[in-house]
């Protein structure tokens, strides 16, 4: 809008200048006639008229009028230009504000989206970690349970293997002082009786 106004003003000023030049040339070329005398007289008349009409005061008056008109046009155009410039500036500010707002909103949306993605990734990572920890805990629990069972079985097996010594130790600790050899004589002789033949054979055929 402002550019068009500027173009119109400049076109108007150009047309006024061209018209002024054309009028000066026309007036200058009007003295050339057909007959030399007549022409000369006409030229002289015209020169006089011209000198009479376009004397220095008139020329100065025209120059002043042109200057004032030019200044007026310049002032108006400057005013229009200033208004247009203000309008353009305000529009430009509004445009910039809108654009920057859009850009910022877009950037904020992207930023928010990236934050959401990062948050989602973090949540997924935490969930995976929790799942892995749960699985690991379950695996460790099973392994621990198996180890406990194996250890228990091993202890029971060891107890069964050494149960004879354990009970013997317990019997000794409990009633060891009360065991009398005389009470055992019958059992010892019974054992000897059962192995008598083996003892005799070993004594007879031994070294």
């Amino acid at each position: 809008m402002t550019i068009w106004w500027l173009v119109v003003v400049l076109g108007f000023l150009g047309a006024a200048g061209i018209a002024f030049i054309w009028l000066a040339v026309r007036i200058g070329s009007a003295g050339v006639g057909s007959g030399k005398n007549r022409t000369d007289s006409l030229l002289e008349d015209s020169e006089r008229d011209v000198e009479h009409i376009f004397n220095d005061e008139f020329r100065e008056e025209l120059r002043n009028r042109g200057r004032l008109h030019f200044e007026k046009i310049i002032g108006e155009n400057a005013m229009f230009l200033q208004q247009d410039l203000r309008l353009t500036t305000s529009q430009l500010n509004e445009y910039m504000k809108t654009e920057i707002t859009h850009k910022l909103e877009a950037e904020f949306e992207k930023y928010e989206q990236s934050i959401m993605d990062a948050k989602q990734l973090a949540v997924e990572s935490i969930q995976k970690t929790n799942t892995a920890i749960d699985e690991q805990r379950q695996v460790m629990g099973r392994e621990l349970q198996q180890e406990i069972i194996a250890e228990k079985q091993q202890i029971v097996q060891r107890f069964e293997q050494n149960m004879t010594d354990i009970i013997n130790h317990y019997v000794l600790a409990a009633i060891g002082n009360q065991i009398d050899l005389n009470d055992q004589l019958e059992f010892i002789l019974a054992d000897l009786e059962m192995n008598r033949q083996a003892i005799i054979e070993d004594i007879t055929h031994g070294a």
Partner: protein
Amino acid sequence: MAPEVERFVGLPLIVVTPVDVGRLVRELETIDNALLQQELQKQEAKLPKTTRFMDELIDLNKLNLLDKAERLRLKQFLAVVKQRAPLLHVSFGADPSSIFVEKVVDWLRENIHPLTLMTIGLQPTIGAGCLIRTTNKYFDFSLSKHLGENRELLMKALRESIATTATTPPQPATQTAEVAA
């Protein structure tokens, strides 16, 4: 058995170990020397004071040690005993009394060999029973061996006891009041 041994009834029950036999041999030599000195000094033959081992040996075999020939036979007999008598090493859980040892020796000499000697060992870990080591064999008559032989029976009883304990609900603790008679 050698002919000089056949004349003898045997060893008294208090003579148990080869050490006892050796002690008898030394005592017999002492007696022999004492009687020889008495003979050389032309004194009346009189037996010196003998130990309980020698007394019982003399009584058992009806010996007259004043007779040189019998002393010689006894010496030969003791030498044979020392060399050929079967020796058993018996370990007990506690130190056995002399009566107990005599009973065991009596059984051994009656059922195994009349001249059986025995060395006694002490092994507190066996608890009850005894361990007998002969020349080539080892006989375990201890309580732990008996428990080991009956281990399955013991385990069965133990498992049944555990199963019964597991199925039976725990009884609340009760307190018994002492009632004066």
